């Protein structure tokens, strides 16, 4: 007896099945991009005698429980914080050994000596909202980034990158090692010019 040819399986519903799966994955997908502000906490051990920092080298930022800002003992809107912080860091009021030859600031004698000395002190209340705190942090980091970008561009005019972009390339795991080796000293140099000195006081209790 002649063998019958096996009938062809109808593949018309394949598309439907694939669609079903596709829709399932579409719905469950959360393409998570985790990004945020990197910070480093100070270690626990107490410094025996804290170094004395001159008043003019400290930029105090206080956020109260009503989410209002007090910068250098004056109320300030958040929009102006970045500019004020840049002004403070870039002041370069120091003389002689403490002079800052790359600063473009006002050389105000009542503001910071040089970026290496300048410290930003951030203090918040326990009742401050987290999102406001993040906004303040964001602006302070932005102030550093503005200055670092400027210096990076000045030192490496042919690279066509600014500090933030270069740092992003450096931190990308797909970047080749040779490229990283090339960028590392350039980034390090700018970081030395404007070291991020952001100190956080323990939050005050609301009375």
């Amino acid at each position: 007896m002649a063998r019958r040819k096996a009938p062809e399986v109808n593949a018309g519903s394949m598309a439907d099945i694939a669609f079903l799966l596709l829709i399932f994955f579409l719905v469950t997908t959360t393409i998570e991009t985790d990004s945020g502000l990197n910070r480093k906490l100070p270690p626990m051990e107490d410094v025996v005698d804290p170094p004395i920092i001159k008043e003019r080298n400290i930029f105090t930022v206080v956020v109260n429980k009503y989410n209002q800002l007090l910068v250098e003992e004056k109320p300030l809107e958040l929009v102006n914080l970045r500019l004020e912080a840049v002004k403070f860091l870039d002041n370069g009021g120091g003389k002689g050994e403490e002079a800052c030859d790359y600063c473009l600031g006002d050389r105000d004698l009542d503001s910071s000596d040089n970026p290496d000395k300048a410290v930003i002190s951030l203090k918040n209340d326990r009742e401050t909202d987290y999102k406001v705190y993040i906004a303040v942090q964001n602006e302070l980091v932005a102030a550093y980034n503005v200055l670092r970008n400027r210096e990076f561009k000045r030192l490496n005019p042919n690279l066509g990158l600014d500090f933030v972009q270069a740092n992003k390339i450096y931190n990308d795991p797909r970047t080749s090692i040779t490229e990283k080796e090339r960028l590392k000293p350039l980034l390090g140099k700018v970081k030395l010019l404007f070291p991020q000195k952001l100190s956080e006081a323990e939050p005050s209790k609301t009375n």
Partner: protein
Amino acid sequence: MSKFKKKKGGDLPAISTASLPDIVFMLLFFFMVATVMRDNTLLVSNTLPAADQVQKLDKKDRVMYIYAGKPSARYKDKFGTQARIQLNDKFATVQDVAAFVLAEKASKRQELQNVLTTALKVDGDTKMGLISDIKQELRKVNALKINYTTRVGDYSQNLN
């Protein structure tokens, strides 16, 4: 009788859909590969604040997550409306943070144990008191690298 019958009318031939499954499969594979299944079910509301000076957290294996915020709607009856910490799949108190960090650290590979980052995924409306407490606990166990996980956006979104 002519062998070549003249076709009647000008009706268009049907478009072949034979390649449709291929196209759909291609999309399917893309989503299958790109999908990251959430490893934590969120018990707290988690609207992250916005920031624009962000850096990416790339390597997932060296990150541990701490969530905080108000319990989400269906846990409100049980856990109240005060902001709370979530570690793994459970609500936790501030005292549990240290133990959690140490346990996470121990579960990672040796060479990664010292480069771990703690990602704080905190709801924007949380008060700073809770976050300071968490930070204090992290300092106690020497987990000093932290990342405030945010959405990418302008900071002014945070102010309303």
